[in-house]
């Protein structure tokens, strides 16, 4: 076990810990004192938080942070009494002979050596060894080391994220616990970057090509945004963690800010230079599914399951305007090149065009105002992306549609009817569009002619 200075930035700790999974889960001998952060917290998270978290809180007891774990309910003794395991309900309910009372209930039994670790931790004073006792366990525990990707995929992997490198020569795709890089001209596999969580839901290259960022996680369990060096495949930082997946990551136009969105309803802004977080925006009431930067990099538009899209000022984190015209979940957003008009789409199957409601020349704000509706594809719209005056949408079907936003007309359809398209990306010149499907196929088209340039299965080893 390495000694870790808790004041080190998280990304450095991430690298240091990469090879040391929580030992309690592996059942090895544990040195004294037992660490809350590395030993007890992972145990609580895996075994107890399902019923005793912020969401459910059975018996009015939560274990999702040290503060909550130690909190005494009104008129009751605390469940943990430092130094006295046998007087601590937390321990007693693990060892009681009364089956009806014994924890965990309706779940896999907790192992005797894990109970022993909890007993020792309480006996040794039940101390906290992290930074802030109120930190949710999921962000307190050491960064996880994920299983390696399979060498050969046993079946096609749904492609849930794509991103062109700034020079347009490489196409990053969501792999299984890895990022895969492909030659978009011929579908040849160029590189595999491991050490990512189960799923990737968004990918972004820094404008200079030095960083490749992946957002994703394990549904219902973990959200992560990780930064890699695409030239070496090295993990540079675990940027962001959440209790459920991260859905989005977007560099601003000059690469100075990285915006992240997650299923904890949050938007976070990071500096890619030192991986520090400088703003946490918490004004959505539902998962934030997508983000887009305004061309000048001053504003973000966000899409949320709370049935709204918001314009947010990056500098202050304040919501400038809220658009509620969908009356249903919003999954995709895009800014028009003039920075004034916004496109959003979601479960209602229509693309709404609205004014961003930014300050006009007199400084007066008007709020979000609907201007028009593009037909959409009549089905839940999964993704939107914007290149110049062209908007691309993917809905719950096999085809991708291209719109001319000046004339507000559909221009062309790409692909054939088939399984859902789940990822869209255009190259930096707007001349090529890539789409990834639930069937594992990636297709690349010329956006001017509609010609298909390449199609391949983005699942290493599959079909060979």
């Amino acid at each position, binding site marked *: 076990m390495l000694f870790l200075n808790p004041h080190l930035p998280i990304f450095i700790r991430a690298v240091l810990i990469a090879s040391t999974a929580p030992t309690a889960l592996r059942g090895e001998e544990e040195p004294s004192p037992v660490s809350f952060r590395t030993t007890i917290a992972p145990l609580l998270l895996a075994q107890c*938080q*399902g*019923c005793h*978290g912020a*969401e*459910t809180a059975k018996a009015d007891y939560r274990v999702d942070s040290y503060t909550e774990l130690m909190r005494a309910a009104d008129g009751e003794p605390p469940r943990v009494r430092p130094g006295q395991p046998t007087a601590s309900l937390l321990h007693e309910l693990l060892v009681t002979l009364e089956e009806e009372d014994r924890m965990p209930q*309706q*779940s*896999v039994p907790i192992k005797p050596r894990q109970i022993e670790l909890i007993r020792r931790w309480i006996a040794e004073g039940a101390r906290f060894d992290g930074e802030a006792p109120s930190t949710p366990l999921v962000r307190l525990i050491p960064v996880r080391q994920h299983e390696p990707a*399979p060498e050969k995929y*046993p*079946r096609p*992997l*749904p492609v*849930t994220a794509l991103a062109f490198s700034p020079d347009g020569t490489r196409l990053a795709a969501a792999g*299984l616990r890895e990022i895969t890089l492909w030659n978009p001209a011929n579908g040849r596999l160029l590189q595999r970057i491991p050490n990512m969580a*189960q*799923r990737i*839901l968004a990918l972004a290259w820094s404008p200079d090509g030095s960083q490749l960022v992946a957002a994703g996680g*394990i*549904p*219902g*369990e973990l959200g992560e945004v990780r930064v890699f060096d695409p030239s070496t495949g090295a993990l540079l930082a675990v940027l962001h963690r959440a209790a459920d*997946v991260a*859905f989005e990551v977007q560099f601003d136009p000059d690469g100075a800010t990285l915006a992240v969105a997650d299923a904890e309803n949050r938007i976070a802004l990071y500096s890619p230079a030192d991986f520090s977080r400088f703003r946490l925006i918490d004004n959505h009431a*539902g*998962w934030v599914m997508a983000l887009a930067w305004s061309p000048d990099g001053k504003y973000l538009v966000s899409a949320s*399951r709370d049935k709204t899209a918001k314009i947010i000022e990056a500098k202050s984190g304040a919501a400038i305007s809220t658009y509620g015209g969908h009356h249903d979940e919003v999954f995709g957003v895009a800014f028009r090149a003039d920075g004034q008009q916004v496109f959003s789409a979601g479960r209602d199957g229509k693309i709404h065009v609205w004014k961003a409601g930014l300050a006009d020349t007199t400084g007066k704000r008007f709020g979000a105002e609907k201007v028009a509706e593009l037909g959409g594809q009549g089905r*839940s719209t*999964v993704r939107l992306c914007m290149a110049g005056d062209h908007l691309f949408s993917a809905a*719950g079907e096999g085809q991708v549609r291209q719109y001319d936003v000046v004339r507000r007309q559909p221009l062309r359809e790409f692909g054939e009817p*088939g*399984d*859902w398209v*789940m990822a869209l990306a255009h190259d930096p010149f707007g001349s090529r569009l890539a789409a990834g*499907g*639930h*069937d*594992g*196929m990636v297709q690349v088209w010329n956006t001017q002619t509609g010609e298909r340039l390449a199609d391949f299965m983005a699942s290493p080893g599959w079909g060979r």
Partner: protein
Amino acid sequence: MFFSRATLPALLAATAVQAAPPPVSFQHEVLPVLTRQGCNAGTCHGSPSGKGGFALSLFAFDAAVDHASLTRDLLGRRVDMFNPELSLILRKPSTELAHRGGLKLPKGSPEYGILRDWIVQGVGMDSADAPPCEGIEVTPGTAVTLRWPVPVQQLRVTARFGDGSRRDITHLAQFTSSDEAIIEVDPAGRVIGRRRGQAAVMVRYLEYVAALPFTLVKPVPGFRWTNPSAANYVDTLVHAKLRELQFTPSGLCSDSEFLRRVHLDLTGMLPAAAEAAAFLANETPGKRARLIDTLLSSPEHAVFWAQRWGDLLRVSPTKLRPEGVEAMNRWLVNAMADNMPHDQFARALLTASGDTFVNAPANYFRAASSRDDALETTTQLFLGARLACAKCHNHPFDRWTQDHYYGMSAFFHRVQRTGVDKKKGGKGEVLVGTANEGEVIHPRTGRTMTPWLPGRGKVTVPKGIDRREIFADWLTRRDNPWFARTAANRIWAQLMGRGIVEPVDDFRGSNPPVNGPLLKALARDFAEHGFDRGHLLRVILNSRTYQASSRTEPGNVGDRILFSHFQPRLLTAEQLLDAVCRVTGMPEKFDDLPAGTRATALPSPQMSHAFLRAFGQPARTTACTCERATEPQLAQALEFLRGRLVHGKLESPDNRLQMALAAGNSDLEIVTELYWTALSRPPAPGELTVASRHIAQAADRATALADVCWAILNTNEFMFQN
């Protein structure tokens, strides 16, 4: 590209050497598991907006939507084909991750296994040419009587498929009991009798629903059947059921109870004091039967029963305008007075066209807010089926599907209602007619619906024929099992206070009749006599069952539903108001209606009448008998304790008491008259003593008499029909 069945074996061969498990069917296995575990129930993910951001179709009626929701929605987050155990649809219901719905899918259970295998195999959808399920069969297939001491029965459910194959799907079916306290059923389909009585076990698989009636017979110590006599088949069949479940019937009610009971049921009013005295003094045999005949042919009977139909047909000025109300009431009263056969009655309403102010039955379609409403009202009134659920999804507790709903709605889809322009002399009437074309489109599948009838299937209606005629032909056939049964049950319920099927308009397998043979016999008798309402009334009214005492015996204390004794019930709002008026001698004057109009003859509800509202007079906004409130209300007690209406009448200088005092009647005469009027019997000696003492001690005789009258009005004997 979906993983088709054809590619699956190859796919699995590439990953594993061991034999692949048989492919799991999404529609025939996965969805039934979700239904069985309660995932897609209306209170959970089956609610229109889902739960916790995850929505399924109610009881899996839309397989395509459910498949997309499980495998594609939110970037496919709910299933993981690469690490199936990481799938949210396994981790949450097994409570490995927080799940507000609790433990629904224990890890290691067969249901968990089915979902996991389906994920392992690639979350496929059944191919379009997979043989569909065409129905289920439950073994044993008939009504089951469980007997103590081993009241257990295992059910087996078999599904039939389009290719002729059959499969045991007991482990995929969902079992529910209509009354868990009497008959319990476990998830494996094992039925256990708990308490003496009857209940239905409903079996659901996909859109197929079957229901089996169960009876638990448990010997009652000391039970002895006394062989009570039977007046007609009603008694024979009621007694058979009572004997089976070991209850005894009560004896006959007294003459005064019978007199009051039958008057209230047939005319809505109390018998007059003189009539009561004469009836009790009469000692000729058969006087009860003769009274029944007399009342059935009385004008008050036609008016009172017309009012009951007015409730169901929503006869109110807000819907029909005053002219429509007047026309409709005239028509209903005539129909009752002429004892119009029920088939003609239904046909007249269902096929009516023309001006609603002139051709009264056309108001049937005016009262309906839409064509869908017309369909739902028709099935509720004449088929005893609440079809409304099936408009948006397959009926949760019955065999009605969305296809049935829209297939039947095709019969009413061409009905058109047009107002008449004021400039062209219109006075607010509506013209009802039918168009020559127009088809129902199924909202989910987009298909054009062919008219469909239960028990008949799809129907071709020739051009130029009003589809409603075809519907009425089918409805009123003597062999239509639903029509006669629904009508007979309604008539029974009106007399007995409770239907053989209850609620009276909610016939379904999962809500079986408490006495099936009785309902069947009544329906057959009704149909065989040309749907003669008067005949059926006579049969029931002359039975010992109707004439049974409301007092229980040790052998039937626990029964409230098998008709072992008469169930006392609160007079309806209108009956009670008329009774108060009769006893006080103070008629009620209603706005805009001629003086002397009785509450039981009101043409439409008096919405601003506090007393009538408090006692549950329906506003006539729905075609449901349930709109009449029967639950006791605090407002009711207040009306009698200190309400203006009751006290106004008691304190009026014109009331019965003041008239009697002015005529010089003695206290004894006045109190005796009150008892006969209010309760159809003379006062008992004890009652007289108490009343006389109170009057003697009082300062003011008139006030004291009013006190006695008030006391009588507050007795259960007065307020209830016993």
